[in-house]
């Protein structure tokens, strides 16, 4: 062999020198050594020789590091077969002889634990394994060693088990020796990391080895294995702050639980010990015990569980029977809450109840087929609680319901038992089966009539039985389902139950609201139980609901819409509508009745309340469609009726508004196309709207109808949109009417109120569609002409201005025509001198200009931004005060959100009709705000007419979302402060309102900005809040302003510390506020004073 080019002693020495200070560096040396051995450059013999001096050193430290070097090198060899069997034997011998050297023990054990994994470690050869195991027992005492050393001894065992499992199983003597070794090693362990390995090993031993209970040695093993694990139960462990192994209490608990439940033969010890621990009062421990019990029941053999179930049942039943079980809700569809493990904390006593019930169910499921006694025992034990309704009835029925959900057989048995005459049968009027029961009857006669509280309990308890039906049904497979539906015992009592619940609902006093609610809950449940009721019975329940709903409405008591029974009946009906047949029932029995009721209602408040109830029930397209047909007829009838026009309009408004609301609701839950509505609904709808509008041009009605028409258009398939646009243009822009829209006037020749509907319709048309006959210049100038004619009707003018904006925004492809006009307009205003007086026409011209700009900035067109700059320019340079003021006020229009330019169905991401109707870019507001704000701030500083800019800003702020505002708070604050201190001649409510609102936002978002100004602010706010500021007989600080001022003060005193110096002054200043005329102001003054009194 060639002498290694490496200097072996140096490597060894370097290892020894570094290992205690830097294990990372030292491991590189041991890896190099291992590499040399693998490559054959170094034999084991040579390696040991070189190690020799240090291995035999008299200094403990050197010796121990030397063994460490050997162990690390072996570890780096990774089981390589470079070490021959002979080599392995030699090292095993050497290491075993080293076990009495305490200084090296940790590393000797570590080396051994790596060695057993070597391919050439043969257990039988040289009796290696046996000698190793024996040596560990005789030479190593866990109690005298540190946790790290003990960890190595566990490692030997786990490595042995993984490498030589089969050998250990086939050689029983060695297997036994291994177990003995484990018990030796694991006794008295305290270190969490070692315990985890210990529990794992214990579990593995229980799973791998078979123990014979007749064998004395094995019996002893079993006891020891149990003790070595159970002595830690229940584990409570708080990880130290700097735990390098990151071991959690949860890990330890889980592993321990796995160990205890891994050996059926532990049963005689484990069950009794666990039950004893259940007496603890700490819920964490009790839950741990129950979880362990559950795992034992799950994992132990059926025979074992059978042997112990009675003990368990006797111990567990009281957990439920003697506790408050309000956590179990009878209206839910589950008895044991799903996800209870993660949703309920271990600290919660309720979890104990749930776990107990889970164990009982598990016990039952495991034993039901083999043992009939379990069911009889449980039923027998609970019988006395069910004879009448008393305090333990609910607890008992919960247990029964839990076991009833396990199998058809068990379900039938429980149902039969519960509804037997002796038990609840007598309450629900089950026939007395035998004459001999007369004796019982005398006993129970007085109980037969239940008081209200007991009726409530009984209804609740019935609910659990229904729940078990539902739970069981979920578990069954397809074939079983039908058998169950036809042959279950609950069917036998169906009629009794329906009659019983129905009587409770109809006959009990109307004061008994809780009882009625509970009955409705259970009726709802019955109606939703799969394959339980037939159509007639469903009908019966729906008619019960109808009676309740109609009954409450006709009672006409104050605020009947808030009645809880009504609400329960409505939500019950909604919940019950789960298939087509039930939709029919709901329509036929409930909704139709409500519509009829609506017909006879004249009072508009009641009318709206009933509409709201119908709206609640409108939960799918079929119902909506039916309602649209019925209500459309109603609208036609209203428009033709000879009622007072005000009433007609009002009814019309309310119906249209409701339809819009329901339409959106149904679309949001499940989208549908409205292609058919276009031909079926709209023509008649338009007809009646136009009829009404000619009688009375009500603008609110126009707005509301526009909303509905817009929505319908939006949900018509995109391919039809060209046709729709053509129809609308033809109807409104010519004197002809189109086939859908019977509108004969020409909206371009005269101003018509219905233009509002047109606006919303074309705003919802897909933006890719074009007006065929469109020539921008022509149409726009016509619209402008109309606008100039509407001088007096502001509302109508704004409608036309919107038309203008929509046309420019969506349909004008060439902006040059507009550009000329806009240039002309702005030129006109720039020329005005300080003496010029604005005419009405000037105002309207300016309106047209600003709406043009709005249309353009919405789509972020560069022309739009150019003109925003022009306006800003005009604002600072114009010498005409009136113009300045007009520009200042107009800017707000650019920020206002209009329905025609915003998404009216924000809840719907992808519209089913594939329509994209808006031509509005994101962030346009932010972009123009960033141009406008600096101009306002600058002008405000430098001009004597500062309130123009304040006013302008306050109008803008009203329309600006907080997210845009937040980044500009610092710049805005000076303006706010100035505006609050303006002389009252220049003050007005709008400025104050937005200043106070902005101040509130500033304080909420960033306290530091205002902090310096507090001393100035507080007195100002107090004046606004308590005094009365008049200017020219007009109250400036209205109720709203006073409230805002108080809200600002409240947030100031809540948010800032160290304001005690203001306490006294503020308290006395607030006194007038206590006698304010408005109650809301007084209330806030009180609240603020209360805050101040607690300030110190």
């Amino acid at each position, binding site marked *: 062999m060639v002498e290694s080019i490496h200097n072996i002693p140096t490597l060894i020495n370097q290892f020894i020198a570094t290992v205690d200070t830097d294990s990372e560096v030292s491991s590189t040396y041991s890896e190099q050594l291992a590499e040399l051995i693998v490559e054959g450059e170094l034999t084991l013999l040579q390696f040991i020789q070189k190690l020799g001096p240090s291995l035999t050193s008299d200094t403990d430290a050197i010796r121990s590091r030397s063994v460490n070097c050997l162990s690390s090198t072996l570890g780096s060899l990774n089981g390589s077969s470079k070490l021959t069997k002979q080599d392995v034997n030699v090292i095993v011998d050497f290491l075993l002889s080293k076990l009495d050297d305490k200084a090296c023990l940790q590393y000797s054990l570590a080396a051994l634990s790596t060695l057993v994994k070597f391919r050439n470690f043969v257990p039988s050869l040289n009796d290696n394994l046996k000698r190793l195991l024996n040596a560990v027992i005789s030479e190593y005492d866990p109690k005298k060693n540190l946790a790290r050393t003990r960890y190595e001894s566990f490692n030997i065992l786990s490595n042995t088990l993984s490498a030589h499992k089969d050998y250990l199983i086939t050689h029983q003597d060695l297997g036994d020796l291994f177990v003995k070794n484990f018990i030796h090693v694991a006794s008295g362990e305290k270190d969490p990391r070692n315990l985890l390995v210990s529990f794992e090993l214990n579990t593995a031993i229980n799973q791998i080895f078979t123990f014979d209970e007749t064998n004395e040695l094995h019996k002893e093993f079993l006891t020891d294995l149990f003790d070595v694990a159970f002595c830690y139960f229940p584990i409570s462990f708080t990880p130290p702050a700097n735990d390098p192994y990151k071991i959690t209490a949860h890990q330890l608990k889980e592993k321990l639980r796995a160990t205890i439940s891994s050996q059926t033969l532990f049963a005689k010890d484990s069950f009794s010990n666990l039950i004893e621990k259940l007496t603890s009062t700490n819920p964490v421990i009790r839950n741990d015990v129950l979880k362990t019990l559950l795992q034992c029941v799950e994992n132990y053999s059926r025979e074992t569980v059978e042997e112990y179930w009675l003990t368990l049942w006797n111990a567990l039943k009281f957990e439920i029977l003697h506790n408050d079980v309000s956590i179990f809700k009878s209206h839910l569809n589950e008895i044991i809450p799903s996800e209870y493990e993660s949703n309920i904390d271990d600290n919660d006593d309720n979890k104990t109840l749930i776990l107990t019930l889970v164990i009982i169910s598990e016990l039952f499921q495991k034993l039901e087929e083999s043992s009939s006694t379990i069911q009889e025992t449980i039923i027998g034990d609970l019988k006395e609680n069910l004879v009448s309704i008393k305090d333990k009835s609910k607890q008992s029925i919960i247990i029964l319901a839990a076991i009833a959900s396990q199998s058809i057989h068990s379900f039938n048995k429980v149902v039969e038992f519960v509804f037997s005459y002796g038990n609840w049968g007598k309450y629900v009027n089950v026939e007395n089966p035998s004459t001999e029961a007369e004796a019982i009857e005398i006993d129970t006669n007085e109980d037969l009539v239940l008081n209200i509280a007991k009726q409530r309990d009984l209804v609740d308890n019935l609910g659990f039985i229904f729940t078990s039906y539902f739970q069981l049904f979920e578990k069954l497979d397809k074939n079983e389902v039908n058998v169950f539906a036809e042959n279950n015992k609950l069917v036998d009592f169906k009629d009794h139950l329906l009659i019983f619940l129905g009587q409770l609902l109809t006959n009990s006093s109307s004061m008994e609201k809780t009882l009625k609610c509970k009955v409705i809950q259970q009726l709802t449940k019955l109606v939703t139980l799969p394959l339980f009721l037939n159509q007639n019975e469903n009908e019966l329940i729906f008619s019960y609901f109808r009676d309740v709903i109609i009954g409450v409405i006709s009672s006409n008591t104050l605020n009947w819409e808030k009645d809880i029974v009504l609400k329960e009946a409505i939500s019950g009906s909604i919940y019950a509508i789960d298939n087509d047949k039930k939709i029919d029932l709901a329509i036929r029995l409930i909704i139709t009745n409500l519509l009829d009721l609506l017909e006879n209602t004249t009072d508009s408040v009641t009318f*709206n309340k009933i509409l709201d109830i119908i709206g609640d029930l409108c939960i799918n397209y079929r119902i909506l469609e039916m309602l649209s047909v019925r209500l459309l007829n109603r609208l036609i009838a209203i428009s033709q009726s000879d009622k007072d026009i005000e009433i007609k309009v009002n009814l019309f408004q309310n119906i249209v508004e409701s339809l819009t609301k329901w339409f959106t609701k149904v679309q949001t839950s499940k989208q549908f196309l409205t292609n058919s509505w276009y031909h079926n609904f709209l023509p008649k709808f338009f007809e009646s709207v136009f009829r009404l509008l000619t009688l009375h041009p009500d603008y609110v009605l126009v707005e509301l109808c526009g909303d509905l028409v817009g929505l319908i258009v939006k949900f018509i398939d995109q391919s039809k949109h060209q046709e729709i646009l053509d129809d609308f243009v033809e109807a409104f822009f010519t004197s002809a009417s189109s086939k859908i829209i019977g509108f004969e006037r020409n909206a371009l020749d005269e101003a018509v109120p219905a233009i509002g509907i047109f606006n919303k319709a074309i705003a919802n048309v897909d933006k890719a569609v074009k007006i065929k006959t469109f020539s921008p210049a022509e149409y726009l100038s016509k619209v402008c002409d109309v606008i100039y004619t509407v001088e*007096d009707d502001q509302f109508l003018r704004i409608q036309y201005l919107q038309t203008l904006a929509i046309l420019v925004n969506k349909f004008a492809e060439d902006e040059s025509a507009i550009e000329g006009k806009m240039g002309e307009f702005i030129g006109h205003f720039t020329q005005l001198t300080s003496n010029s007086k604005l005419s009405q026409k000037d105002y309207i011209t300016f309106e047209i200009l600003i709406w043009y700009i709005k249309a353009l900035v919405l789509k972020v067109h560069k022309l739009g931004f150019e003109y925003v700059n022009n306006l800003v320019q005009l604002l600072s340079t114009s010498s005409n*005060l009136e113009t300045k003021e007009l520009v200042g006020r107009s800017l707000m*229009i650019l920020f206002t959100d209009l329905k025609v330019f915003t998404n009216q169905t924000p809840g719907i991401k992808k519209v089913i009709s594939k329509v994209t109707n808006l031509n509005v870019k994101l962030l346009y507001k932010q972009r123009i705000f960033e141009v406008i704000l600096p101009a306002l701030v600058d002008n405000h500083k430098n001009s004597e*007419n500062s309130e123009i800019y304040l*006013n302008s800003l306050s109008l803008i702020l009203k329309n600006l979302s907080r997210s845009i505002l937040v980044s500009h708070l610092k710049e805005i604050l000076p303006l706010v402060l100035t505006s609050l201190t303006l002389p009252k001649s220049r003050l007005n409510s709008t400025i104050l309102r937005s200043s106070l609102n902005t101040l509130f936002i500033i304080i909420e978002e960033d306290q530091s900005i205002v902090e310096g100004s507090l001393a100035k602010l507080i007195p100002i706010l107090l004046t606004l809040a308590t005094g009365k500021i008049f200017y*020219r007989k007009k109250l400036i600080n209205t109720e709203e302003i006073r409230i805002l001022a108080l809200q600002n003060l409240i947030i100031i005193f809540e948010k800032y510390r160290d304001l005690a110096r203001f306490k006294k002054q503020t308290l006395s200043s607030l006194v007038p506020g206590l006698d304010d005329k*408005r109650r809301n102001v*007084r209330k806030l003054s009180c609240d603020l004073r209360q805050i101040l*009194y607690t300030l110190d």
Partner: protein
Amino acid sequence: MSDPINANPTIIDVSALPTRISASSDKSKSRHDELFERVLSLSLAPKKHSLNIDNLTLPDLVSDIEMESPTEDELSDAIVEESEDEDLIDEQEIFDLISTISDPEHPLTLAQLAVVNLEDIKVTHGVNKKTDISEVLIKITPTITHCSLATLIGLGIRVRLERCLPPRFRIRIFIKEGTHQSENQVNKQLNDKERVAAACENSQLLTVISQMLSTCK
């Protein structure tokens, strides 16, 4: 505190307490008006015939000196007084002020324990608000007839009202007839100015009262 004197009182559910029920008004009406207003606010041009009359949203562009006439406020006062509706301080308002005070020994409010009841509150307004004295009369019902905390509760109510009512009110607090063993004594104590003032000097007592008032809404 030692064992509660009345460990098991009857409790009224919060939802069952009297509240100021907003007279069911037609909400849709005001909503529709609002809609109308919103659209109108977009109009820049004044109405043709009102071109020269003050615009609501527009501050007057008049110099300061010109209009600061001292008598103006007083003149306008009478007119404006009428422009704002007055919500009179009524029994319900007093009830709302004191109903959320906590009981000193239960985690419940006085209204939940039926210590204060709407029908046992009486408000009398002076003829002229500015000069005549007004009065609030409250009768409290202790949960049990030997309740030693009745005075404390009464004091708590008095402090709350003194802090929250304008000074023109005289506050009188009595034990409801026949609900307490030493009715007269307690009544005297509660309505004796000197004694109340002395009690309010006691910092320990004040701490307890602060706690009772801390739940006020």
